[in-house]
């Protein structure tokens, strides 16, 4: 469905969009944003699921399994990490000790 010229156009426009969308990010958000975009390419999960759904035979099933597991890890890990980092930037002051996950 998305082939040839339209595919090229979509690729070009997506590239412009990606570039422009983050062109004003303040330095303190670099790491959370990196984490956030890391989450976004977790959409590879959808592709992994499709491949897994079409897999036939042990080899394909095994690779598909790895693909799905890793993609899910990308998506879930990316999400949780991003949310945790961004929660730090929320303005309300917090109790100063015993933060979950902080040593």
């Amino acid at each position, binding site marked *: 469905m998305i082939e040839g010229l339209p595919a090229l156009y979509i*690729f070009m426009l997506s*590239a412009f969009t990606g570039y422009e969308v983050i062109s004003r990010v303040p330095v303190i958000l670099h790491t959370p944003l990196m984490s956030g975009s890391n*989450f976004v390419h977790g959409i590879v999960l959808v592709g992994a699921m499709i491949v897994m759904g079409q897999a036939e035979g042990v080899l394909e099933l095994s690779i598909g399994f790895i693909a799905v597991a890793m993609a899910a890890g990308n998506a879930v890990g990316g999400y949780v990490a991003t949310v945790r980092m961004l929660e730090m930037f929320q303005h309300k002051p917090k109790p100063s000790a015993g933060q979950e996950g902080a040593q």
Partner: protein
Amino acid sequence: MGISIVIDAVYFVTAAVFIIGLKQMSSPVTAHRGIVWAGIAMVVASLATFGAPDIKLDIGSINLQLMLVAIILGSAVAYITAKRVAMTDMPQMIAMYNGMGGGAAAAIAAVELVKLSAGAEGHGLTVQVLAVLGAVIGAISFSGSAVAFAKLQGIMKKTMRLPMHQIMNIGLFLAVCVFGYLVATGHPVSFNHVIIFFILALVLGVMVTLPIGGADMPVVISLFNALTGLAVAFEGFVLNNAAMIIAGTVVGSSGTLLTQLMAKAMNRPISNVLFSSFGSDGGAAAEEEIEGSMKEIQANDAAIMMAYAQKVIIVPGYGMAVAQAQHKLKELEDLLEARGVDVKYAIHPVAGRMPGHMNVLLAEAGVDYDNILDLEEVNPEFPTADVALVIGANDVVNPVARSNPESPIYGMPILDADKAQNVIVIKRGKGAGFSGIENHLFYADNTRMLYGDGQKAVSELIAGVKQL
């Protein structure tokens, strides 16, 4: 037809929401909302995919069962690690999740190529080329991220530079190209070629990342992140999946920009990060004679100085993160403010080991956003500050960046802590900073050294102030 329209619509909206989410993530006010939106879109897209018409997921099929197991397994591992890990260890976790994404993209390509080698009908040359491109990029991102993770996690200590490293890398790269060409154009594809191709790509990822120093890792991780995006986009073309194409490309291009921005904030061209390890050039050669000596101060005296100051500017650095002194600092701040002292934090953009490192830690300790000033804001304030308290920072307050053109950090904008009336420096000893060069600030007339671990030293300061 009906169901496929619904799924197409879901992917369409997902792509749009991802873009909006990323946009929101680039401003502190909307960032949290952005990730939540993107998260919802991701869940909906994944659920919709179960209904995709061209896959066989009948209840009870082995495919469905294995898929569910894989999803649960991957999600659980990622969820638990991501929840548990300390804030300061976030960069390596991002590397890990990113590597997983790259690996998934490569695995998708692997399945397609295995199918082709088993004699399945291809989708034409273009698609095959895209699959191979995505495979290389994904594999490099996967193994490279694994090395990055190992380094930051301390599993792999040293930067490794084999003899003739660059030349070997070039050779490897050419080999990957050759086998990539064979796989991309072969019909039928040879199974052995596919195997060799993937092994070469994985090794290349490792080899490229090995010689890079641990502290340059944030930039490298960001680069791998962009690469994974690109790999996902290419596999999106292979699978004809618009959400993957768009999300992947958007991450690819925004990640490239982000990598540039990060490198720029550190005053290191990306080519430097990738092809030469920091400090191996310049460094010692450019060292000047330093006048003066390092003068020690006791915690009690330092506490008095700060308690009777009008304005104190705290400059945290990597050492504060190592010592996890942020909560104590906040306590000190509260004590001083109760005495009417004006306390501010000065954050250098690359203080610590990842962009925003200090902000994250201070925010964690509950420091008020308004008291955290960045470089441009705070530099004009140093001359009117009575005390600059430098805690575990080194390179970011090194005046040599202003004065000595031969220094490896020359040109990096620094915090002008040396312009404060008095400077107190907390560090454990004579350890150098990330760049490995001497710091003239420590020898200045108005500087006093308070030796000790960051957390301990601040605790002593607190005790000192409380006594007054």
